[in-house]
């Protein structure tokens, strides 16, 4: 790659040709602020907060640093008085149509706009007050709301929805001052084919979109002596929760998380990883059954409710390819309210099942049909990682000072196969570990071909004389690409893992928001996934079928994988939906 020399704030630096002003400044140790810019996803240069002075031999002028390419010998000033004045004015203009209700905003403290206002010393937030737009809050979706009074029209949500996820149910409507982000014909989000993935929330710089908060009813259930309140935590939560308390991205806080949940007053602190192991038992069995008995192939995983809803909308002809297994969240709730309730002599009606998920689609999933094994909903409340962070803060728990604690038995016992469910390829690898064992009696552990953050991964394994072709996709635009190949007959996989969010659950829509200034340069998917793979490597048991609690649940309750009882409790059905 050809290099060119530029000067950033007076110091020369050599950068590859094609480098943007923003990237060159970053390499030189100066951060240029951004609001609309998302590398490769939203490079529209629209918000103008990144304006930077450059001189290409014709004197200094302001350009949009996020998209403007460096030229040889360019002089760049990232924070000159003119630059700072311009950015400040941009902020004042954004504030002129913003509701500025920071004190009651869910993003107060980690809002990108709020931080910029502080950084640039905004003295008068109402400097350019005039006519303001006023919007009703859209509460129509199960998992989130939109408050356009806080929207700054950066279009990051629009970009992830249409490009990363290939859905595009939100976009800019109207024009000029009247522009707002919404859906076709001003439909509520709940009426569209939004799949609830929450990637829009994860990238929103402000508090314009957020998950619906269910922390209050959970705290009320905990305070109710009649109720047994159980909590389960998804694999990816332990890899993200620490960020709510200032820990570096990629810190494992499993022990502290368990301790905090206990301090919050949950009666039992269990692990969704247990149900991940259970999923593998059922799904590996389903896979082998379909292979042996000529069932519908490829079998496609059903752990990700965002993906499942996407399949129902966009590939309704392929819902039979979906595994009939409930997701681990739902399997957990179903097992807790049947097997565990019976074992402990608790009426399932008095169990409140709370799940902590890196996911917003889980809020939609708990209300799906055929998700109530004990006659009551398998899961009562699905909270995001962010909501748990808020609960811990609100309860005055000193999270960083907590001693590590362990999950409760028996539904807190899990293997390395369960914990890697939180990363793309993890379900596939876990399934392969058990499927290969079942077919050959051998115990291979590592399947590196299906690891990593690539959007689509493929591998072929020779198992007991049979070639097993597998594929893994994460992010729904990637899923679509893969499935179109399958539909056209260009690929003949037997088993496919699909996760709705890019990189899998570690990068789920319910995980702590990371400022785009960091995300543009750090791969959060990789850092959080490493937590899970390190945990897997450190665990004594790494195959789901070796989990003693899983063995017990089959011996005592389900009989064997795929049994009639297992089907009643652990499996579900799908519907065909249309595209709006």
């Amino acid at each position, binding site marked *: 790659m050809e290099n060119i020399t530029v000067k950033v704030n007076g110091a020369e630096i050599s950068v590859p040709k094609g480098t943007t002003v923003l990237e060159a400044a970053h390499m030189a140790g100066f951060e240029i602020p951004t609001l609309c810019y998302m590398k490769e996803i939203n490079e529209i240069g629209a918000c103008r907060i990144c304006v930077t002075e450059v001189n290409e031999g014709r004197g200094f002028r302001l350009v949009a640093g996020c998209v403007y390419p460096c030229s040889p010998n360019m002089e760049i000033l990232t924070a000159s008085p003119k630059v700072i004045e311009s950015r400040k004015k941009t902020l004042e203009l954004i504030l002129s149509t913003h509701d500025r209700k920071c004190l009651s905003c869910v993003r107060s403290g980690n809002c990108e706009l709020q931080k910029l206002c502080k950084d640039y010393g905004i003295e008068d937030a109402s400097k350019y007050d005039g006519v303001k737009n006023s919007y009703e809050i859209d509460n129509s979706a199960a998992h989130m709301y939109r408050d356009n009074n806080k929207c700054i029209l950066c279009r990051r949500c629009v970009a992830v929805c249409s490009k990363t996820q290939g859905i*595009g*149910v*939100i*976009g800019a*409507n109207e*024009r000029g001052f009247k522009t707002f982000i*919404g859906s*076709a*014909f001003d*439909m509520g989000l709940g009426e569209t084919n939004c799949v609830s993935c929450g990637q829009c929330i994860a990238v929103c710089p402000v508090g314009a979109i957020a998950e619906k908060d269910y922390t209050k009813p959970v705290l009320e259930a905990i305070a109710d002596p009649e109720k047994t309140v159980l909590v389960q935590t998804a694999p990816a939560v332990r890899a993200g929760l620490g960020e709510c308390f200032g820990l570096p991205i990629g810190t494992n806080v499993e022990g502290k998380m368990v301790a905090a949940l206990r301090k919050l007053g949950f009666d039992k602190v269990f692990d969704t990883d247990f149900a991940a192991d259970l999923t593998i038992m059922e799904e590996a069995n389903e896979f082998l059954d379909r292979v042996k008995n000529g069932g519908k192939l490829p079998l496609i995983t059903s752990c990700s409710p965002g993906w499942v809803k996407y399949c129902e909308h966009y590939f309704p002809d392929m819902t039979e390819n979906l595994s009939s297994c409930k997701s681990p969240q739902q399997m957990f709730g179903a097992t807790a309210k049947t097997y565990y309730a019976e074992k402990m002599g608790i009426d399932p009606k008095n169990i409140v099942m709370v799940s902590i998920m890196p996911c917003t689609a889980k809020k939609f999933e708990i209300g799906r049909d055929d998700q109530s094994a004990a006659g009551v909903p398998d899961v009562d409340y699905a909270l995001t990682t962010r909501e748990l962070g808020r609960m811990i803060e609100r309860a005055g728990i000193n999270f960083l000072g907590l001693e590590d604690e362990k999950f409760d038995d028996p539904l807190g016992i899990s293997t390395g196969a369960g914990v890697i469910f939180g990363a793309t390829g993890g379900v596939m690898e876990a399934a392969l570990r058990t499927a290969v064992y079942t077919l050959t009696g051998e115990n291979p552990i590592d399947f590196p071909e299906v690891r990593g953050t690539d959007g689509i991964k493929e591998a072929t394994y020779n198992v007991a004389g049979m070639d097993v072709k597998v594929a893994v996709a994460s992010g729904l635009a990637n899923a679509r690409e893969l499935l179109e190949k399958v539909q056209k007959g260009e690929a003949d996989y037997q088993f496919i893992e699909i996760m709705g969010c890019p990189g899998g659950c570690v990068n789920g829509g319910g995980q702590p928001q990371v400022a785009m200034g960091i995300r543009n340069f750090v791969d959060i998917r990789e850092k959080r996934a490493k937590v899970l793979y390190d945990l897997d490597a450190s665990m004594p048991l790494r195959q789901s079928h070796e989990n003693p609690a899983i063995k017990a649940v089959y011996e005592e309750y389900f009989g064997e994988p795929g049994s009639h009882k297992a089907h009643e409790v652990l499996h579900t059905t799908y519907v065909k939906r249309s595209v709006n």
Partner: protein
Amino acid sequence: MNSAKATVPFKGTKEQEAQLLEIIAEKKDTQGALMPILQKAQEIYGYLPIEVQKIISDNTGIPMEKIYGVVTFYAQFSLYPKGEYTISVCLGTACYVKGSGDIYDKLQEKLGISGGECTADGKFSLEACRCIGACGLAPVLTVNEDVYGRLTVDDVDRIIEKYTA
């Protein structure tokens, strides 16, 4: 599929749909196809209701929201049909300073629609227009070919009544 915007019941015909599908088939694989498709669709139907946008979305793979975003961005596209009577209120300078803005507001209130829309019974559509060269009569409005001048807000009821009878 519900639209938050109430409008006149859709009366598209099979012939119109066939015509639209032909245009889509012809243009859909070219870059920037959406604008010419929307222009043709509006020629065919006279406006671009949800039913028409759905046909375009289903047959191009372009998400509905993207189409709706384009339609609401450009003033040349309309989500509403023209009514049996089109009321145009001149908001040109002379009429405006003589109070045509108040007349326009009164009409919106009276008809229960915003400018650019059509009443649900298909009777009236309302629009603002630029100077029609009758400044001497300001403020002015037209109902189809009929011109009404030197108006006050109080004249609005009388004019509407004339066409509802």
